[in-house]
């Protein structure tokens, strides 16, 4: 199994743990990743909210680079994933959009490069059964609330690998890793996304609401698959507590970090130490990492 990997800007900065853990997990599971050479930013929300042309052309430019490598694309960031899929959808569906993308990038592209999210590849390509067979240190006793956020499941005609209102792929993956997943109603609620930059008070309200519900539903931690969700839900917990009432901090981990621990990978290789709310005590309890004082993660 081989993919052209599109890391995206976040994975080089605030989502470095997602980058580390995605690469480590793929390596351990025999999925080979080759970075798209000289990839550029997908444009994210600022592009689609400012220029329709830019919103198609920047993703198209990256997909053309993948086409040259002759490989399907794998993306980790949910936002990049949605932008690349949207561009393909429009280029395939509307000839005028295809022509516009070609005029802007100066190269032909017919939208036929497949774009998959890492979660989609793990659940639907590799499958929970094969993953279960590879698990060496099951996350026994860990109660995980799987948080899918917005762009992995919406809009379904564009992303389409799970149910838009009741997704289950991440839950299957965490169950295969030996964790117990909780049934909870906020799997696809929005964290506020890039409002973190412009209206952080809204992100604090949403963070407080989501984490309180996860706690109420019996979860010990949250599993996420989007850089913006992770940062908003992890970094803003102290501010959220100040604004909306105190609550017990809850570790927010990338699904690939939790999966990696169950595969027996080291916490360092998965960037476990680079989270704001430390999951160390929690993970030590279920035997996924060495307990405090025994060395290991910060």
């Amino acid at each position, binding site marked *: 199994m081989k993919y052209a990997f599109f890391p995206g800007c976040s994975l080089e900065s605030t989502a470095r743990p997602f980058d580390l853990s995605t690469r480590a997990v793929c390596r351990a599971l025999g999925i080979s990743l080759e970075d798209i050479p000289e990839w550029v930013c997908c444009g994210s929300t600022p592009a689609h909210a*400012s220029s329709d042309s830019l919103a198609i052309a920047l993703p198209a430019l990256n997909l053309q680079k993948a086409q040259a490598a002759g490989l399907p694309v794998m993306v980790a960031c949910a936002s990049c994933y949605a932008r690349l899929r949207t561009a393909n959808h429009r280029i395939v569906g509307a000839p005028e959009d295809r022509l516009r993308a070609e005029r802007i990038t100066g190269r032909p592209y017919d939208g036929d490069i497949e774009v998959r999210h890492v979660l989609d590849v793990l659940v639907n390509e590799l499958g929970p059964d094969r993953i279960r067979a590879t698990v060496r240190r099951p996350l026994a006793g860990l109660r995980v609330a799987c948080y899918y956020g917005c762009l992995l499941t919406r809009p379904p005609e564009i992303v389409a690998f799970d149910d838009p209102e009741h997704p289950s792929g991440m839950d299957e993956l965490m169950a295969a890793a030996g964790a117990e997943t909780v049934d909870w109603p906020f799997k696809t609620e929005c964290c506020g996304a890039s409002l973190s930059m412009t209206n952080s008070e809204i992100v604090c309200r949403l963070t407080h609401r989501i984490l309180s519900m996860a706690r109420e539903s019996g979860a010990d931690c949250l599993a996420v698959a989007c850089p913006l969700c992770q940062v908003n839900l992890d970094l803003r917990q102290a501010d959220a507590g100040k604004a909306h009432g105190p609550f017990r901090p809850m570790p927010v981990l990338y699904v690939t970090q939790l999966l990696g621990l169950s595969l027996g990978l080291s916490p360092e290789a998965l960037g476990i130490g680079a989270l704001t709310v430390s999951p160390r005590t929690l993970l030590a309890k279920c035997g996924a990492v060495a307990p405090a004082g025994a060395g290991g993660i910060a």
Partner: protein
Amino acid sequence: MTRENSPGKGEEEMTRPIPWNGSRLLEEVQRCSGTLVSACFQCHKCSSGCPIGPEMDFLPSQIMRLVHLGAESEVLASRSIWLCASCEACTTRCPMAIDIAGVMDALRILAIERRIHLPDARGKQFHRSFLGSVRRHGRVYEMGMMAAYKLRIRDLLSDVDKVPQLLAQGKLSLLPDRSGDIRQVREVFRRSEEEDGKP
């Protein structure tokens, strides 16, 4: 629909009839977003599921209605169009398959094109700073982008407390990481501007 913490202004405005004013807003929004706003029958499903509803001056379904009515100044100067987080819940749930999040994008683009005085310019300045960084480096250089944004909104201090931690965790870098294809990226920006300028 009754809501606690109703912003008030939106609903009050909605009860006052807006006379037909020859506005071509509906047409323009439909052309720019490629979606049929006129199919909206005010079921309010978009508004009930909107995570940002409590902070909005007009709820998404009210924005749809105002677009129908050609209430240009109300829509284009609303806070709502900049508060939309593009979570796509409305687009996903609309029974008439209206791409409501796409309409919000179209309205933001129109508001900038027409140089509307914005009640809060933070959204616009963030997008400008972000795309400026991409144009310069091919990828987002977060430190540079944040600095440019904070200078533009004249708020240097918010979230500065988080920087040392992010630096220590290796999540912010002091220097930009450039894509090797920077000339091509600049060309894409230039040609996109040309395309957007076409009638």
